[in-house]
């Protein structure tokens, strides 16, 4: 009997994106540039995070016509973002036939208490996390892929590094505990005990773990890969730089060959201007995106 929409199939697509780069694109033309540069998938959105940050206002799911345009422009998988908790935007994306839905803190949250119950969908979801507990809550709701939140639209990788290290440290700690303490640990973490136990046994998340939020250079991408990310999302870093096509390909190169400093060095040469970065301490607390969701 054919089974569809299972977690196995959802994480299966995430497996096929490993070692690749997923690029934020706003138009079909950008999607084409991303595909030509070697992107493994593109993320369709209305405005890149740097513009959302600058322009303010409520950031929502992209209009369907824009997503259809991007789907027509490329053959690689197309992802799109919905607001945290906005399950109707997710229903619309599923009706479009999008390949992956990002329930994203980059958009303005639609529900401050609940994330989407993602088991209700056949389409896989990716969600951001700043800690292991948060990652496991999202997986508990049905996420098939976790990414660091980082701090999107800053061109500053520091928060993505913090979140990746946080998750790695917590996993290492879990491994050191005996199984008798799993329920208390789960209670203190605020995460499902079955998943806590699974991570303690396997030493890794039960779904792939990618990096996102502030990646702007090939070196940033290779850094996240060396810290344990299995792929990299790049948002504003490409189309807010001086030469997007060249930078996109360079980030792809550094992601494939992240263990090879010579290749990362070659990829880093003559890229023109990187996007202007923002120091996290210069951002007013209320404007930090990583604090959205729980």
């Amino acid at each position, binding site marked *: *009997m*054919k*089974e*569809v*929409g*299972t977690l*196995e*199939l959802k994480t*299966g*697509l995430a*497996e*096929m*994106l*490993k*070692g*690749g780069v997923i690029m934020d694109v706003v138009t079909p033309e950008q999607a084409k540039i991303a*595909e*030509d*540069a*070697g*992107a*493994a*998938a593109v993320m369709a959105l209305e405005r890149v995070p740097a513009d959302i940050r600058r322009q303010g206002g409520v950031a929502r799911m992209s209009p369907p016509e824009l997503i259809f345009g991007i789907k027509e422009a490329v*053959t*690689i*998988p197309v992802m799109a973002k919905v607001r945290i908790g906005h399950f109707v935007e997710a229903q619309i994306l*599923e009706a479009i*036939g*999008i*390949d*992956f839905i990002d329930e994203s803190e980059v958009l303005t949250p639609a529900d401050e208490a609940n994330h989407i119950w993602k088991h209700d969908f*056949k*389409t*896989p979801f990716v969600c951001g996390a700043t800690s292991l507990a948060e990652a496991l809550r999202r997986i508990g709701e049905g996420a098939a892929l976790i990414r660091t939140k980082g701090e999107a639209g800053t061109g500053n990788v520091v928060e993505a590094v913090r979140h990746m290290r946080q998750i790695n440290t917590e996993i290492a700690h879990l491994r050191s505990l005996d199984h008798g303490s799993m329920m208390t640990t789960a209670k203190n973490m605020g995460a499902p005990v079955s998943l806590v136990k699974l991570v303690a046994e396997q030493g890794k998340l039960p779904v792939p773990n990618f990096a996102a939020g502030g990646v702007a250079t090939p070196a940033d991408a290779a850094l996240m890969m060396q810290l344990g990310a*299995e792929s990299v999302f790049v948002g504003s870093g490409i189309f807010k730089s001086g030469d997007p096509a060249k930078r996109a*390909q360079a980030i*792809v*190169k550094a992601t*494939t*060959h992240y263990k*090879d400093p010579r290749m990362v060095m070659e990829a880093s040469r003559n890229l023109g201007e990187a996007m202007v970065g923002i120091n996290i301490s210069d951002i007013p607390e209320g404007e930090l995106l990583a604090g959205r969701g729980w």
Partner: protein
Amino acid sequence: MIGILALQGGFEAHGKILDKLGLPYRQVRLARDLEGLEALILPGGESTTMLKLMDIYDLFEPLARFGASGKPVLGTCAGAILMSRHVDQSGQRSFGWLPVSIERNAYGSQRESFREVQDIPAWNLTDVPALYIRAPRFTELPADVTVLSRLDGDVTGISRHQFTAVTYHPELMDDVRFHRAWYQYQVAPLSAGAAS
């Protein structure tokens, strides 16, 4: 030593299965990684992305030579696309080792991806679980291709000489029988021949 093309995609999953079978392997990202390999796996992922990366890393010609050298190659999903002679109507480039036509994303987008079990009589396997993820479909097959597996009306797995291609993902399951049989039927006989 088996090579797994590791530009992007399901390379890790294949590695895990080979680990379970105790078969040594190496990830292939540059031409020099192909040296001394007895067989090669082209994993799933995005065939267009992989082709772009092969160009960027000067890997297309070395891989084409590897396939032509007579050593066994297994392609799953995107790997099967790379091995087929005709891709879509688009004329997407490929190694063309198998004289067949293949259609990309033939079953639709991720929403239509599915799991199914199937038999591979030529390898004495029954009920092998497999995932079809944005899977391709063989559209034209000449008579001299060995059919390995079928699903409803479609041929989903084929072999011809040293080449094996399936449109699904046997590597995403805990089941190691597919890879063990591939090694037993396709790799070991040729390796033994080379050694003697």
